[in-house]
């Protein structure tokens, strides 16, 4: 972590990372010497910590503290553990971790969470130490057996080798002896130059089953005697069921039960089709509750009014007021809409609720929180709630919430201990999301000698952190909402960042892939382009001049400019746009090339990005995450918007909540810049990078300075009023 803000007045997420990573190391290394893992697992195995279990037959189980939702983390975690363990990587077996903040808490959050692109950042050192400790114990066990100095032994491919005598011992044969040893406090870690797995081309662990249709996602759980249910929650946020006429639904073949529970109606059937048909046949009268008057225009009015107020100071360097005296102040405001996650696997959860216990099956980014909230809802002790995690058909932050589990438990409460799989329709999924909040950012800047002299940046929007991780919400500042604003990479002598917390009425807000940096980087990089134009400079040159203190990003900008053909001629109404950012511990520069049709339609022609993400654990996966992340962000920029009318979400399926499709996606090239720095985050980095680069491409192609997303095609039509 080379890049630090020059002076910060509050805790940044990067600082949070630094502090809690130390706590995490403690967490991971003061584990008792005991076997972890599956209840009833045969004794006799070597389980020096919560991540590694080697059985006497050599079977090596690696327990995954982070969940696999497509980001490739199972492969990366396994590579890191196996690297330091010197396991036979081709034979390791991976296991989902059970709920336990103590054993599997994310060092950055303190609880068991997969999010914020921090799996590898958070676990890089703890996992290496876990692997190295286990390896050291196995080596010691072998050395003791052979009465030789452990230093004269090496390990590779699941064996300890004593080269002078030519003896070898498979890890499995050393399990009994290694169990008797205490884990070393500070096992030596490998010199990265000696890595044999990390950074090398590796296939993913999870994909063979996925291409064969064999992977069990939460929605695929099948249990004997299982019922199938689908639900309708109040379409108006905060509403309730007034009455239900279920006479027609009860005649639908296969319908077993109609459940009415405050704001929720469920139909339970022999299969999803019966449940869906039954739900469609219900005549539900809703009491819309207090939010029936809420609509998007009022939410925007509130946000705009609130953003005029002074905010809480998040960072200050120099004196922006002094710098603005006598200078021309250039000001712009940028706005981002509500967004749904629209994971391909719709929300679902399977529950079997008995009198004294509850069993839950789902794919979640927060398994321990699911356990705790289900325990709270049912009144059961947490240890009576068993949660089985699964592969996740898209997380993107949606599965950082336990609501799908709680609703399924509420359905199960009306059944007599039968297991029930509750699957949401796509419409229910989009209309009952926990939405990426609306944001409004206002930036005022001055220029001096062709560079930015002052930068006053105010972010207004929901504080997701305040609800989701209250201890991290300090001094009225959402550290996520201001993340890439306080960590702005440019050399700007006078800087001020403020935050205004504005909670939209009725609409629940949550994390969405790219989180705070999406908003900060969109506003910052859009405005930088506008300022470059005012300064009469090329957008790349303008940025490079101000990146002296951030050489890793400077290198990425130079690299992407070269690879994207920056400056080369383009046809009419085509443009290239650049965005540069430091986010999630990675340094990335992106160029989008786009064409704007005369009628205002926008076509992506080409995307190029260069990234320095430190040591690349799994290089091909980094490229894949950036390709996908860019598309995720570009989808939002081109189409994404959730709108509210009469307290309810208007969109419902992929026709009105559009996702980029094959015929709209251009070639995307990703270049990795070699680095020996600690790994940065990569799952969300591309998502943040895409929209400002596209916006700037449109700006270059048309001169239209779009300041809100999704892009407004009407403003881009030839001859449209600007």
């Amino acid at each position, binding site marked *: 972590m080379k890049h630090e803000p020059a002076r910060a007045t509050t805790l940044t997420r990067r600082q949070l990372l630094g502090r809690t990573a130390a706590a995490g190391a403690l967490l991971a290394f003061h584990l008792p010497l005991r076997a972890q893992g599956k209840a009833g697992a045969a004794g006799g195995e070597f389980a020096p910590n919560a991540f590694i279990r080697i059985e006497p037959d050599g079977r090596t189980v690696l327990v995954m503290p982070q969940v696999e939702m497509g980001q490739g983390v199972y492969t990366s975690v396994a590579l890191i553990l196996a690297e330091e363990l010197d396991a036979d990587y081709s034979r390791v077996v991976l296991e989902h971790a059970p709920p336990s903040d103590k054993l599997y808490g994310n060092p950055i959050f303190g609880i068991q969470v997969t999010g914020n692109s921090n799996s590898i950042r958070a676990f890089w050192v703890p996992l290496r130490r876990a692997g190295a400790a286990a390896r050291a114990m196995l080596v010691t066990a072998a050395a003791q057996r052979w009465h030789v100095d452990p230093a004269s032994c090496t390990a590779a491919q699941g064996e300890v080798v004593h080269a002078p005598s030519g003896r070898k011992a498979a890890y499995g044969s050393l399990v009994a002896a290694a169990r008797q040893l205490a884990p070393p406090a500070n096992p030596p870690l490998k010199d990265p130059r000696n890595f044999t797995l990390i950074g090398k081309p590796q296939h993913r662990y999870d*994909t063979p089953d996925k291409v064969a249709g064999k992977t069990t996602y939460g929605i695929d759980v099948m249990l004997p005697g299982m019922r199938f249910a689908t639900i309708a929650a109040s379409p108006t946020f905060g509403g309730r069921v007034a009455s239900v006429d279920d006479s027609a639904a009860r005649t639908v073949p296969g319908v077993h039960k109609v459940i009415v529970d405050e704001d929720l109606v469920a139909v339970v059937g022999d299969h999803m089709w019966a449940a869906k048909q039954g739900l469609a046949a219900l005549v539900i009268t809703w009491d819309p509750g207090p939010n029936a008057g809420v609509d998007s225009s009022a939410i925007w009015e509130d946000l705009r009014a609130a953003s005029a107020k002074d905010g809480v100071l998040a960072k200050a360097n120099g004196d922006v007021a002094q710098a603005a005296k006598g200078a021309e102040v250039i000001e712009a405001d940028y706005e981002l809409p509500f967004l749904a996650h629209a994971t*391909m696997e719709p929300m679902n959860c399977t529950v079997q609720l008995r009198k004294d216990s509850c069993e839950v099956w789902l794919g979640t980014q927060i398994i321990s929180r699911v356990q705790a909230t289900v325990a709270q809802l049912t009144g059961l002790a947490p240890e009576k709630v068993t949660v089985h995690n699964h592969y996740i058909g898209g997380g993107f932050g949606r599965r950082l919430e336990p609501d799908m589990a709680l609703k399924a438990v509420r359905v199960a409460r009306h059944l007599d201990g039968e297991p029930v799989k509750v699957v949401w329709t796509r419409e229910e999924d989009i209309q009952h999301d926990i939405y990426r909040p609306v944001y409004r950012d206002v930036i005022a800047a001055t220029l001096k000698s062709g560079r930015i002299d002052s930068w006053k940046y105010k972010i207004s929007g929901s504080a997701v952190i305040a609800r989701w991780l209250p201890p991290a919400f300090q001094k009225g500042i959402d550290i996520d909402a201001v993340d890439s604003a306080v960590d702005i990479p440019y050399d700007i002598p006078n800087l001020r960042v403020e935050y205004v917390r504005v909670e939209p009425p009725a609409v629940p807000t949550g994390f969405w892939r790219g989180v705070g940096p999406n908003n900060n980087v969109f506003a910052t990089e859009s405005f930088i382009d506008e300022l470059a134009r005012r300064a009469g400079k090329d957008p790349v040159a303008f940025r490079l001049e101000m990146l002296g203190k951030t050489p890793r990003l400077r290198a990425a900008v130079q690299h992407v400019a070269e690879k994207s053909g920056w400056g080369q001629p383009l046809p009419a109404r085509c443009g290239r746009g650049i965005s540069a950012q430091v986010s999630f511990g990675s340094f990335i520069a992106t160029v989008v090339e786009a064409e704007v049709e005369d009628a205002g339609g926008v076509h992506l022609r080409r995307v190029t990005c260069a990234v320095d993400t430190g040591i690349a654990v799994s290089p091909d996966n980094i490229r*894949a995450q950036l390709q996908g992340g860019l598309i995720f962000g570009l989808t939002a920029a081109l189409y994404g918007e959730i709108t509210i009318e009469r307290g309810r979400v208007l969109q419902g399926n992929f026709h009105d909540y559009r996702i980029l499709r094959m*015929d709209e996606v251009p070639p995307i090239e990703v270049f990795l810049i070699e680095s020996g720095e600690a790994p940065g985050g990569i799952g969300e980095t591309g998502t943040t990078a895409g929209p400002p680069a596209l916006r700037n491409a449109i700006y270059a192609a048309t001169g239209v300075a779009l300041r809100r997303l999704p892009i407004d095609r009407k403003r881009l039509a030839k001859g449209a009023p600007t």
Partner: protein
Amino acid sequence: MSLSRELKINGHAHAVEAPDDMPLLWVLRDLLGMTGTKFGCGIALCGACTVHLDGKPVRSCQLRVGAIGDREITTIEAIGATPAGARVQKAWLDLEVVQCGYCQCGQIMSATALLTSTPRPDDADINAAMAGNICRCGTYVRIREAIKKAAESAT
């Protein structure tokens, strides 16, 4: 009313009790436990539920079982037994197309149908055949590459 019927799936006869209007998707998933075929949107907008009917790609969420008759259904669970399906699955793995994987069974079914009908597809063919399959992880760039690789590997 529930009706006993027999469906030919992946070369085997399966007896099911299902009303005529029940979509094949839910018959496969909930009655037969063949969960490789995925539910994504329910209205043929995303392609996650794609299966083959006599070798042609269809959205199983919209295909009533009463309309199938004795036509052959092929699902992801057996597509690897066809030459094109095996090539597609291999290309998918060689190029590491997959991320979360939830949509990929549908993608593979669409891609296999494309290669069966158009052994050497160009970009326009790929767009036409694949635009009905949404991937939220954004694996399209690799899907396109993998289809081309699978096509080349046939010769």
